[in-house]
């Protein structure tokens, strides 16, 4: 077991339009990519629970050629709405850093 923040090379999040956030998990190599992309701790159900969003809205994309797992889901607060604390969704990735990966 290790935390995702220690396994991944770089993780970033950003708005993809006002209604979506997208998170890119860049891994060092094919092995760490397989470990991350196959982890149930990053499956749509776990992401939905971590962020308090609907599992149906969570999308996962695998880009093995560049060792990236991409996760997108509708933002919990629409960009600029009253409850929005992160307009560009630039810090949405932070809760992922401490997720335990097998």
């Amino acid at each position: 077991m290790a935390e995702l923040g220690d396994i991944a090379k770089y993780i970033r999040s950003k708005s993809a339009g006002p209604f979506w956030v997208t998170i890119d998990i860049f891994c060092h190599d094919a092995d760490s990519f397989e470990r991350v992309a196959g982890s149930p701790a990053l499956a749509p159900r776990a992401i939905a629970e971590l962020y308090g969003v609907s599992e149906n809205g969570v999308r996962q994309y695998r880009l093995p050629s560049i060792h990236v797992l991409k996760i997108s889901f509708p933002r919990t607060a629409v960009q600029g709405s009253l409850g929005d604390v992160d307009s560009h969704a630039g810090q949405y990735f932070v809760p992922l850093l401490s997720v335990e990966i097998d």
Partner: protein
Amino acid sequence: MTAGDAPRCKILVPSGVLGAGCHDEAFQRGVALGPDCLAIDGGSTDSGPHYLGTGTSKMTRQATKHDLRQMMLARDRLGVPMLVGSCGTCGTDSGVDWMADIAREIAREEGLTARLALVYSEVTAEQLMPLLDAGKIDALEPALPLTRERLLECDHIVGLLGYEPLASAIAEGADIILSGRTTDTAVLAAVPLMQGFPAGASWHAAKTAECGGLCTVHTRLGGVMMTIDAEGFDIEPLHAANQCTPYTVSAHLLYENSDPFRLREPGVLLDASDADYRALDERTVRVTASRAEVMPYTIKLEGSGSAGYRTMIFSAIADPKLLARFDEWLGNLEAYLRAGISRVMGVEEGGYALEFRPYGKNAINPVPAASPPHEVGLMTLVWAPTQQQATEIAKYCNPMLLHFPLNMDDPLPSFAFPFSPAEVELGCHYEFKLNHVVHVDRPDQLARTRFETIGEAAHG
């Protein structure tokens, strides 16, 4: 590899947004390569609903003028078309007029003459209502219900144009095209598409170059040159010391796109799932096997409208005794304030909103911290239908934000206020109201184009 004399179309993209600046050495190197067109995006929703709500630019006029001058001077020397999309950040009519005014000023100062096309794409709620009634407006995911009332709540609505109205303006003789809201990619793909280069390569190249140097290794060394041909496209940085690699170019499709493989544009779907990325040399990447599928022609709508006003108080706390029991303190404070807002101010729940953001605690990160914070900056936000009401409620909160004790029998504490007055009026609050597309019969259905000559000939 492409043959040296095969038809190619070179587009110089100075940066990801007009006003961000392009390293001059990089820009001049790009100009020396003889591009067939200069194209840049001028806008985005990325900075929130305020700009569309107010019809104003995020970028300063001075920085915008600096970049526009660099492009207009180069365009005049090269004699090629130049395009600026989504003028004034939000692409409203006021954004196009603002940019046109800057262009006229530059033309006067530099003694340039050019045929200008202004392509507007702002639409009114009234214009959209028959389309709504006819079932021609679809919600995108996550779906927001759309009614006539919701359309009327928008202060500004823009349609994200495709490339066709821009291409028409060039075909009619425009040298400089300043457009309202347009997809970032359409601005860059307009010239290759109108010249008949393949849709897959043209859209994929545009998607790669739309953020300027972001698809390169040294992202601050200026923009890129995209070169389209019959089989694919090449992409290289403008700056000789910068590089594009298969990694930086393929990874760029991730950026700000929820789906990195399939990207929707007006009338077309770019499918980059099987695209091949190959280094031509140490700084140029060749991309092939990008596909484009023809889709129903839809134009995405963006709408923003005012929704009340906010006033903020920012206060700060470093007392370790309080920080050890911060959540309990904040809960008591909130209950006290809400009761008082009702009893003293006579404002009931629903007539206002009160929100606390304890920066340093968990204002943005929901994961609980292992130990109490060193200090906390407490942002208190009050929302109300008018600015005056929001400020009155904030003023009511002020003494308790300064003095609310941890235990009711504690001697009166005081916390740190950074300003006097403590209340900061945030002005009108805007919200995005639309996440929809409209089916149109013609690509230029929501576009209005006006031509004029700027510079010396305009007065001669």
